């Protein structure tokens, strides 16, 4: 609370991005965790809640006749434009938000203070909801070829891996330890997914410390063990998801990629997904496109193309499709890595698993997938999402891209996922919210040190409780579709993307991840939402009526903020973004 000098400011305007005459007027409150804006001008009490952790930037804009503007950009792409009457108040709010939105110590994160009034037992149960061992059991592991080992229980093999990892039975302790010395940060090849039908395995690791000529016998034996665990195929793929040029540059630093001559029967392949810095600037460009005031069609399409975002999405999808195909059709095991094996590798491994196994397209399965490929395997959520004040160069929308890829799949296979886009959006919001412990820290060891299992709650039980509202009504069940074989032709992907402009990005009828708040949310229901949602369809349509359409100037409709008026139930802070599509009242309040 020491950062809050002015907890309440009256007569604050909240500007509508598209219709300046419809500015709301109300009171702004700062609490320890949220910025709350109460619209007093509306007939119905309207509240806007913004979690401090969601704020990515706060800007003071030049003075206008209405007062001192304060522009807030959020990590979930929500934008709020306030105008405050007094300069002092504006400055106070500004400095408070700067501090509050950039916590320095992990203990300041919301998860450590969040208290949903839940018994200790149920909190602990919550953490046990997702058990990765059960997932390996589902794959038939341990079996003759694969075992779950606790060789990493003291983090001797790899500090960013979980204590228990799955490696080939044939790989002895010496092989594992030897291989770990030859892999960047000790991230040795481990199993990610075993395709039971033909024993082909999907494995992941980091780049080898090969330099220009170094080799490691144990690492070679490790790969051999993986290959031999799948007797159905005489070779295995080693896939480097980086562009070849990047991989070659790494060789100069003593890292690099596998030399095909040193490893027996491997087929080496580059896939060419760009690195986190390229992705970060791509998203930045995309956001700029979507923030253009009134772009022409051509501005928009050119901007979209120049951002490269869709190209990157397609590259990730293509990689996932390649892995799934290799496993399913060529019956070959695949070992995937990038540089450290925690960004691109996580994306493509989880995508391939999703394509191969219908289990991961259920609620529980998707949670398992995220726990397994992202959380356990050390995707650095804390750095990539900028949870704490830190190096901005470490921030990158890697997880956002994965979620978008899943969304793309949903568009092509509308009946194959148990959950709806809203579920994806919830997860995406919480990755940034720090309200739950799951995504804190950078790896398992980190989370143990933060004692998140004792001090915080797990997100998953909260989401499962809301299964009814997050489900996909079109889902045809577990057995309806086995493997998915998506089409990634550009116009397909584009058609994906064209929906993506409006749905993913603009959270129109289908909500998805990027920029949903930057652009005008369209107030009509998704067809499938309208089927199970409590609101009648025509009501969504009628939202358009309120839209002031100025002569000569086409204005995109609907305010960019439309919040749920219900009192402060913590989860509803998150559901506002979803509720925008459903109109002013959130379904929980009905």
């Amino acid at each position, binding site marked *: 609370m020491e950062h809050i000098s002015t907890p309440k400011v009256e007569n604050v305007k909240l500007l509508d991005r598209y219709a300046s005459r419809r500015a709301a007027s109300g009171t702004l409150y700062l609490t320890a965790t949220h910025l709350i804006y109460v619209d007093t001008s509306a007939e119905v009490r309207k509240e806007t809640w913004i979690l401090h952790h969601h704020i990515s930037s706060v800007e003071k804009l030049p003075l206008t006749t209405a007062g001192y503007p304060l522009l807030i950009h959020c990590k979930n792409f929500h934008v709020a434009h306030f105008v405050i009457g007094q300069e002092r108040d504006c400055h106070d709010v500004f400095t408070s938000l700067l501090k509050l939105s950039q916590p320095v110590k992990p203990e300041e994160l919301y998860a450590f203070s969040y208290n949903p009034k839940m018994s200790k037992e149920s909190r602990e149960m919550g953490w046990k909801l997702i058990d990765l061992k059960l997932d390996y059991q589902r794959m038939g592991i341990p079996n003759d070829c694969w075992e779950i080992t606790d060789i990493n229980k003291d983090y001797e093999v790899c500090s960013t891996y979980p204590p228990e990892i799955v490696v080939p039975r044939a790989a002895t302790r010496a092989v594992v330890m030897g291989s770990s010395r030859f892999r960047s940060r000790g991230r040795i090849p481990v199993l990610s997914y075993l395709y039971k039908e033909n024993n082909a395995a999907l494995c992941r690791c980091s780049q080898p410390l090969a330099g220009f000529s170094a080799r490691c016998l144990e690492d070679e034996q490790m790969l051999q063990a993986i290959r031999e665990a799948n007797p159905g195929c005489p070779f295995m793929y080693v896939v480097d998801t980086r562009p070849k040029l990047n991989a070659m540059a790494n060789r100069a630093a003593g890292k690099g990629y596998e030399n095909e001559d040193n490893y027996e029967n491997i087929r080496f392949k580059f896939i060419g997904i760009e690195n986190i810095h390229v992705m970060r600037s791509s998203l930045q460009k995309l956001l700029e496109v*979507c923030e253009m005031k*009134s*772009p022409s*069609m*051509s*501005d928009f*399409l*050119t901007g*979209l*193309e120049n951002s*490269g975002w*869709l*190209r990157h999405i397609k590259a990730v999808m293509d990689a996932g499709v390649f892995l799934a195909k290799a496993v399913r059709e060529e019956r070959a095991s695949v070992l995937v890595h990038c540089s450290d094996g925690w960004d691109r590798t996580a994306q493509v491994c989880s995508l391939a698993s999703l394509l191969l196994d219908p289990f991961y397209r259920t609620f529980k399965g998707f949670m398992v997938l995220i726990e397994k490929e992202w959380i356990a395997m050390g995707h650095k959520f804390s750095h990539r999402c900028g949870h704490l004040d830190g190096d901005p160069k470490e921030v990158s929308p890697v997880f956002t891209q994965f979620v978008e890829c899943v969304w793309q799949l949903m568009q*092509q296979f*509308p*009946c*194959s996922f148990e959950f709806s886009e809203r579920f994806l959006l919830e997860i995406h919001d919480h990755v940034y919210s720090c309200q739950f412990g799951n995504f804190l820290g950078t790896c398992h060891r980190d989370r143990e040190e933060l004692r998140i299992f004792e001090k915080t709650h797990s997100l998953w039980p909260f989401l499962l409780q809301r299964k009814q509202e997050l489900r996909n*009504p*079109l889902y*045809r069940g577990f057995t309806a579709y086995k493997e998915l074989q998506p089409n*990634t*032709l*550009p*116009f*397909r*992907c*584009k*058609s994906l993307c*064209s*929906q993506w*402009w*409006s749905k993913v*990005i*603009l959270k*129109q*009828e289908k909500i998805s991840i990027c920029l949903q708040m930057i*652009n*005008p949310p*369209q107030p*009509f*229901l998704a*067809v*499938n939402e*309208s*089927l*199970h949602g409590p609101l*009648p*369809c*025509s009501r969504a*349509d*009628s939202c*358009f*009526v309120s*839209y002031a*359409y100025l*002569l*000569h100037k*086409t204005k*995109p*409709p609907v305010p960019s903020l439309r919040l749920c008026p219900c009192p402060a139930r913590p989860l509803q802070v998150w559901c506002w973004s979803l509720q925008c599509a459903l109109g002013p009242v959130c379904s929980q309040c009905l």
Partner: protein
Amino acid sequence: MEFAELIKTPRADNVVLHRPFHPAVEGTLCLTGHHLIFSSRRRDNAEELWLLHSNIDSIEKRFVGSLGTIVIKCKDLRIIQLDIPGMEECLNIASSIEALSTLDSVTLMYPFFYRPMFEVLEDGWSSFLLEQEFEHLSSVTNEWRLSCVNKDFSVCPSYPPVVIVPKSIDDEALRKVALFRYGGRFPVLSYYHKKNGMAMLRSSQPLTGTNGRRCKEDEKLINATLRSGRRGFVIDTRPLNVAQQARAKGGGFEQEVHYPQWRRIHKYIERFHILQESFIKLVEACNDQSHNMDRWLSKLEASNWLTHIKELLTAACLAAQCIDREGASVLVHGSEGTDSTLQVTSLAQIILDPRCRTIRGFEALVVREWLQAGHPFQQRCAQSAYSNSKQKWEAPVFLLFLECVWQIHRQFPCSFEFNEHFLILLFEHAYASQFGTFLGNNESERAKLKLPQKTMSLWSWVNRPEELSRFQNPIYEANSLVIWPSVAPQSLQLWEGIFLRWNRPSRFLEEAEEERINIIKYNKELQAKVNVLRRQLAEMEADGEVQEGEEP
């Protein structure tokens, strides 16, 4: 002429048919006067493909040894490939198709030969008469009248025999106004907004010429639609400079001095060859197989198609806004008043009038604002995106209109009684059809061709209950409100149903549609059950009360 003369090889065996996303099939190819028929009698999947010759946009042939290959590109944008063994057969077939798909006489077209296999419940040729529309109108206002001034098409050859005009204007005045408007297209009522009594008129450009001619009757006619003291809007679909240049050729625009009560807005909508080029570029981009995202996006951008959609929707919103929000009457015209004018007036009605969002209402709109209003379908739809001939009067004007409707439909999925398939159907039939509905360029030509007597109407077929059910939107819920679409670039999408229709596997999307329909159906059943139970409960309660009352 006998079609047989054009068909040297009526039949070829062992022909292989290739289509995207379908395995190749071997079968027999037959040519008839109006169809190309491919049938495969394989036991596992016997199938037949019937293709109207008039649906064929272009044809290419090539040879590898004695195996000839014909690539047929259709007006509905489908591309199929036929491998025909034997060079002579292939050449014969190709030249027959070429000849049969480019017949220049309307009376040789299939609609004149087509005999329906269904029972006609309602003759579509008389389903949507302007008289009925007028009856509807006169129930709310008596400011308008039906004029038969054009009954022999002498005043305006591209207008229907009857039109609706302000009551205070007599036929004599209309004749004078017709001389002052290009092609005789004097201002007529397009839409009456019941909510506030405002009217939308359409016409062609006034013939003011360089010396600023005026026509008192014209001014009187359009002023008759204004409330006292209120201004109206003229929406000119040309940019100002084009309108000014038009004066040199005898055309022009309404000058402020003579029309002080009208404010003129120039809202440019692209026309003719520019649209056709855009259409061709877009279709080419959609058939590009290079798998490159940037290339696709830049081609999409370069085609400008979505820009045209955006501009058109904007203009329609503007017209609708003037009427509904500003409470003003509107006159829409461009040059001829047969293309962009009709796009604007018909789209504005989709936005304003809930009736136009029903199936019958939309059919009536197409008849009223396109067929009767004299959109030259025969010229505009003679060729589609694959044609090599560069005729300057071909343009996807009607397709653009349908796509705009689709865009609005997408934004208001529950407000339309019809579904996407209905729009696709209209697109197909405008370009090639067994029905006579879209033949001819205007009502006068249709009368001369005796289409109502000699051909079947599309509406006769489509309005039969069994056909209609395919075009119903399962989530329709009548919405009596004005629907304002978003025209921001982010809100507009490519119409996959048309442009990627043959380039996407549709199984999963169809399954989703099926699932939606099932859910709606199930929901309705449950709702019915609930109603029955409620009624029972109410009855039982009523009985209970009666009994209680009897007891003492």
